[in-house]
């Protein structure tokens, strides 16, 4: 190694293709251009000798077992190459024919952009265009104290939101857990054994976790109840202010004949965009639209990737376009007989 100069790649005795046993030294850390007419042996020197040898040496570092998968590298017909550092070839090959591969993904800029949106992006409600909020448990407790100080409130944990069913088991289960009251379609009722609701109508059911008067005496109790409510309501809870007269007639604003749009959990609240009750306040540990109760999941970089089911548009699966039937192609000529006009090419 001692005699090998450190600033040159020495190629001696290259005979690949038409190369005539040539010796070349290529200075390192320089911009080197190899030129010549087509077929003169430029590529034979650059790719078939220098690059091939670099690749081969790299492959040699794998074990025999691994090498059988990467294929065979032929030893270029050259006496000696010294001073070669790892070789990367940047060729003209059009990289990828996959429709999911974009400039953003291959340069990885899009991956960073996704990360940026997941961590820094601000969520807006697609119902109202308003910025969404999310609360922590302490914030919810603080908020309760600020807004309802001195008032009598119920802490409600939503169990069913806009779904059909008789919910016999649910009531039974809730009752066995020790809760005494539920709020069904806006009306607070006592839990009774064998209770059920109309199975063909859409219902909102919340369990009343606690009813108390907001005052400093109950600070510990409130925060404990809030915790439990959030747990039961899966990060979502409601606070209902109890006013003597508003206790009864709270019609569910939604017409019960409307179609049951069984979308996934989050966008279920699509149909839920009515002003529920001014005395009810929604709190969520997840991103939520305060007006309509619409909530988003905590954003992850995946949610911004069109190549992930978490982010892709459900219709086009993240491709941006879809095949649709073109009537002009199905019936190219309207003046032809029906049996000869349809689906003929």
């Amino acid at each position, binding site marked *: 190694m001692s005699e090998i100069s450190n600033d040159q790649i020495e190629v001696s005795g290259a005979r690949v293709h*038409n190369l005539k046993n*040539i010796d*070349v030294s290529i*200075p390192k*850390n*320089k*911009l*080197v251009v*190899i*030129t*010549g*007419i*087509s*077929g*003169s042996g430029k590529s034979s*020197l*650059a790719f078939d000798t*220098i690059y091939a040898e670099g690749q081969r040496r790299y492959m040699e570092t794998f074990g025999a077992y691994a*090498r059988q998968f990467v294929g065979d590298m032929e030893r270029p017909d050259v006496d000696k190459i010294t001073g070669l*550092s*790892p*070789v*990367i*070839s*940047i*060729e*003209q090959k*059009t*990289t990828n024919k996959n*429709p999911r*591969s*974009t*400039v953003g993904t291959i*340069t990885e800029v899009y991956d*960073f952009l996704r990360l*940026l949106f997941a*961590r*820094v*992006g601000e969520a807006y409600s*697609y119902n109202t265009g308003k910025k969404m909020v999310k609360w922590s448990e302490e914030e919810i407790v603080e908020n309760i104290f600020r807004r309802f100080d001195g008032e009598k409130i119920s802490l409600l944990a939503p169990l069913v939101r806009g779904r059909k069913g008789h919910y016999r088991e649910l009531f039974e289960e809730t009752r066995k857990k020790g809760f005494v009251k539920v709020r069904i379609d806006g009306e607070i009722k006592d839990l009774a054994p064998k209770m059920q609701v109309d199975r063909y109508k859409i219902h909102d059911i919340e369990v009343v976790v606690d009813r108390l008067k907001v005052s400093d005496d109950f600070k510990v109790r409130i925060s404990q109840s809030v915790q439990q409510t959030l747990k039961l309501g899966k990060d979502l809870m409601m606070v209902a202010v109890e006013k003597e007269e508003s206790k009864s007639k709270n019609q569910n604003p939604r017409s019960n004949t409307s179609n049951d749009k069984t979308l996934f959990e*989050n966008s279920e609240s699509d149909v839920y965009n009515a002003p529920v009750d001014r005395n009810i306040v929604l709190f969520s540990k997840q991103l939520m639209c305060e007006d309509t109760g619409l909530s*988003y999941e905590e*954003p992850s970089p995946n*949610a911004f990737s069109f190549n992930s089911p978490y982010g*892709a*548009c459900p*219709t*086009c699966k*993240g491709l941006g*376009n*879809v*095949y649709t*039937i*073109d009537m002009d*192609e199905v019936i190219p000529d*309207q003046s*032809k*007989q*029906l049996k000869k006009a*349809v689906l003929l090419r």
Partner: protein
Amino acid sequence: MFQQVVQFAKKHKIKLDTAVNDLPKEQLDLILFGDKNISSALVVDVNDESIPHEYTGSYEGIIPMLKRWFASANSTEALREWVVQFMTLQTCSTCNGARLKKESLWFKIDDRNIAELSDLNLDNLAAWFDGLELRISNKQATIGKDVLKEISERLQFLLNVGLTYLTLNRSTRTLSGGESQRIRLATQIGSQLQGITYILDEPSIGLHQRDNHRLIDALKNLRDVGNNVIVVEHDKDIMLAADHLIDVGPKAGKHGGTIVSEGTPTEVLASGSDTAKYLNGEKTIPVPLERRKGNGKIIELKGATGNNLQNVSIQLPLGKLIVVTGVSGSGKSTLINETLYPILSKYCYDSKANPMPYKSVKGLEHIDKVIEIDQSPIGRTPRSNPATYCGFFTEIRTLFAAIPEAKIRGYNAGRFSFNVKTGRCDVCEGGGMRVIEMNFLPDVYVHCEKCNGKRYNRETLEIRYKGKSIADVLDMTVEDAVEFFQPVPYLYRKIKILADVGLGYITLGQSAVTLSGGEAQRVKLSTELGKKDTGKTFYILDEPTTGLHFQDIEHLLNVLHKLSDRGNTVLVIEHNMDVIKVADHVIDLGPEGGDGGGKVLFEGTPEDLIHSKESYTAQFLKTELLNIP
């Protein structure tokens, strides 16, 4: 299915031989969209056989059936392809092409969502990121600091290699070879690795002269980080920018393979080699004194609006050598490869090609044939070679079969094919090589010891034409073959063309996989030239100078000139000034790439083009044209 339709029609008293126009809408809808409610018992006669086949169920309708076939995983490729004929690819109506679900599009930074950002040109995107940390809240800025830095850096690298006009959501399928190479180059520069030897194959391809300096800067940048950069290149600017220039030659093939000169560009310039002469301007491609007049007929394409084209209308004078040029991303390929070529091939061959949107086209009746010659490889198997591709190998085989000795032995033309059992070496099966499987070690290729790489068996090789066996012929270079086959006019003509396009150095039997993109393109070109032209043929070539040295360009231009002299129209997409300056008619697109382009800046002769103020091409062409000694 058809039986179902017939039965269904009978039941609903729909007359299948009424014209679609005259059919009541309800009836047509029934046929097309089916009958959901009534479950009708249809009796279907299969081929009018005696046994009636009972079919019970509702009639599905043609459109739902197509949809089902398209979506079903059980459908075969062929069926799906058949269905696709009746469909069009449309922007997704749910996301409007944004590709993401609704929720994700409502996350915003500085009032922009991620899809909007992906749709920005890279230079606009970089501008948006510039100073972003001041526009967002402190908390956001702290969280995003590192990511922002990373994005800005990467964008800067992409801008540095001249890719300002791309967008992040641009599909890589639609990138040219040069563009994807430059993206990889930018990524590599971004990786900040040191001590690597980078080898690049003609990075200047597809790059307009204007953007050359950006590329050179990028290469120098890669070097300055501490890497070895080796570039195989024909471009003058890049050669002159080199620290060390190696000239391989002097000629091609057997006459090449030695180092003609090496050293700094100045040293090479002083060496007096052919390359030096072109670099010095001692040798140039002459500008024709007179431009071809053409035959006065024109094809007129109006209102092309595909991709970034801004309502482009062009006139293509026939019988001329036309060059379409413009900076990268200005819309050349969209206009020619994706609009014009599909229109022409639809007209000439009734093909199914789908042109990008345009308003009207006139003058198609003046041509009867269109030929597009691109750079895709001619074959992926080692058994394909220039002789088989160009088709004259069949004729060589016929020639060998006609030799008296062959006739005595009863050998026909098939005997001389290395793909047919009778004549080829049965050890290597005509491959000339034998693969020895080493099980867990990589396969080893060895010369076939039976035929010694000649591919044929002994008996076949005994048949000699003018002292050469069929294997000797395959081993000949094109140059030698031209001489050898001079007395056989039909072979001579075809092989001569291969030599004319600058492929004199390849051998007739050279395996197709070893041909470069440029070589493959020229093999195709010569194949097309070997066919009888009609005098009304329209040729489209995409950057034929790829991989060509100055001298080769001269050869190529001679061929193109010959074609147009015979009344054909040759349209070339090209950045090379040597090609632009000899054109009869130049169409310059621009002025910039991407959204800043898509307009026709100039149409006319090169002499007039240099007066154009807006055009970048004009500036470079001016120096080139005024260089005439």
